[in-house]
């Protein structure tokens, strides 16, 4: 299933001019507030009628201004998880979940029991939305959208209203949806952490235009991207495999450039994962450092450097077959004589990797 989108739309204050393809998996629509993310998602859902363009899901045309096609919202079969959930207050959780099924019963898709299990909401069925916590509300909203057996799922900042620990509770559920259901998702977010954890493809929106698009690994290790993301949030995503859990509370992961020791993850041994390593948590050394408390020292090669406006420099390094980013001072970069091709050692402090930044691969 592939969503192809090419729309132009004038909004008060700015113009949307967006083209991208969203293949299977989770496509993250990333950008600052006001970049036009929600408008794009609304156009896919049919809640916004673009001035011109075309939106198609494989061969099924949802919107085509040239041929005067605009499928009404209720015929699009596209699930939508709203930022504010929008559960029906006059229905129980069970009735909310079952709502879309009456028009979708003849299509294949997950059953109520499967979704209850996947989202851990079986114990909530008899409750009313007003008696749910924020995290429960969003899980039910995701379940309700999936029960309508959509061809595609739109999620508009579904975690924005939640605190950090609630977010951490929901992320594994979203990963399971990504890996166990074949429903492609368009995921709007302005959180790099969420994008790094969930996305397979990233589309960066800036002032109503696509600034860049590509697979998540490439995008997050791209130096051009650092400007959009901000230096504090910049960081590469590495595919990894859980090798072992050690009794001292560490988990050993294998990445293409060597081994990483990180705080214990909940994933089983042998599970494939992805780890986000923030650029500011990486230290560079010319020689193999000795007598250092940091556990992770990976050999790497400088592939690119970019100086920012401040005192910092962002380095892109090849580490095995993947890339990582390191943020160091310009002074250090000059002292070490860093240039592309230079061999270095990347030092990563184990405890600086947030468990939220380790997710299913």
């Amino acid at each position, binding site marked *: 299933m592939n969503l192809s989108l090419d729309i132009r739309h004038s909004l008060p204050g700015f113009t949307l001019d967006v083209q991208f393809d969203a293949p299977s998996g989770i496509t993250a629509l990333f950008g600052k507030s006001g970049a036009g993310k929600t408008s794009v998602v609304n156009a896919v*859902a*049919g*809640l916004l009628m673009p001035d011109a363009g075309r939106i198609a899901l494989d061969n099924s045309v949802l919107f085509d201004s040239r041929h005067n096609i605009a499928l*009404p*919202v*209720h015929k*699009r*079969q*596209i*699930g*939508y998880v*709203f930022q*504010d959930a*929008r559960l*029906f*207050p*006059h229905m129980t959780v069970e009735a909310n979940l079952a*709502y*879309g099924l*009456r*028009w*979708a019963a003849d299509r294949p898709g997950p059953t109520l029991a499967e979704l209850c299990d996947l989202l851990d909401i079986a114990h909530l069925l008899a409750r009313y939305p007003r008696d749910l916590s924020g995290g429960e509300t969003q899980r039910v909203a995701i379940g*309700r*959208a999936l029960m*309508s057996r959509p061809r595609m799922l739109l999620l508009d900042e579904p975690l924005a209203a939640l605190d950090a620990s609630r977010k951490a509770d929901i992320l594994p559920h979203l990963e399971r949806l990504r890996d166990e259901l074949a429903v492609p998702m368009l995921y709007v977010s302005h959180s790099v952490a969420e994008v790094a954890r969930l996305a397979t493809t990233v589309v960066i929106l800036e002032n109503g235009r696509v600034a860049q698009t590509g697979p998540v690994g490439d995008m997050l290790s791209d130096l051009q991207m650092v400007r959009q993301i901000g230096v504090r949030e910049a960081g590469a995503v590495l595919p990894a495999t859980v090798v072992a859990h050690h009794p001292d509370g560490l988990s050993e992961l294998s990445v293409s450039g060597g081994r990483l020791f990180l705080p214990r993850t909940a994933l089983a041994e042998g599970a494939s994962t992805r780890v986000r390593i923030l650029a500011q948590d990486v230290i560079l050394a010319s020689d193999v450092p000795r007598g250092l408390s940091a556990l992770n020292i990976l050999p790497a090669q400088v592939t690119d450097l970019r100086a920012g406006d401040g005192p910092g420099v962002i380095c892109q390094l090849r580490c095995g077959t993947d890339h990582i980013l390191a943020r160091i001072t310009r002074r250090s970069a000059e002292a070490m004589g860093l240039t592309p091709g230079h061999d270095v050692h990347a030092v990563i402090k184990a405890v600086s990797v947030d468990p939220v930044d380790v997710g299913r691969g």
Partner: protein
Amino acid sequence: MTAWLGPDEWQAVALSLRVAVVATLISLPFGVAAAYALARWEFPGKQLFNGLIHLPLVLPPVVTGYLLLLAFGPQGPAGRFLEAIFGVSLAFRWTGAVLAAAIMAFPLMVRAIRLALETVDPKLESAAATLGAGPRQVFLTVTLPLLLPGLIAGAILAFAKAMGEFGATITFVSNIPGETQTLPSAVYAFLQVPGGEAAAMRLVIISVIVSMGALLASEMLARRVARK
């Protein structure tokens, strides 16, 4: 009740109840449609439409009654049309009292339903659409259930107003015992004859009780809507 009330008085109360119930039920779908149009749609002439609906609220009731007589009387265009097509005659019949009561109560009903509609979040309706519900199904499964308390409050208010309607009714359908003599008309008639005060007072008490009960019920429902 029947022992306490004389047969004429009882007849007036029963007729008033029948007129008010029928007027409320018949105008309810129109009230919902008008309120929906006013709350959700923009169309040319919306202010005029709004004004027309509210006109009976500000017009002297006797004027409304006279206009009804002109339109729906035996010689009126609408009256002749109804007589010819449906065989329904309104002038000087209880059905005419229903029409007068419905027209007079309509603005109150529309206002209550419109207020309730404005508390129904259109975002919930668009959520229902993304789940596969067409416009009609969205209305039936989301809008209407959320509207229900306001709808009932509007209906009760309209019922109370219809129970008490006097000016337009007596002008349009006169004051015929057993046919068009509603409770207020009966009070008026009793007060015109010597010794009728006791009967009038009994009807007044019933009138106060019914109106007060309706107002309380309507208030209670309105507060339930506000709480949500």
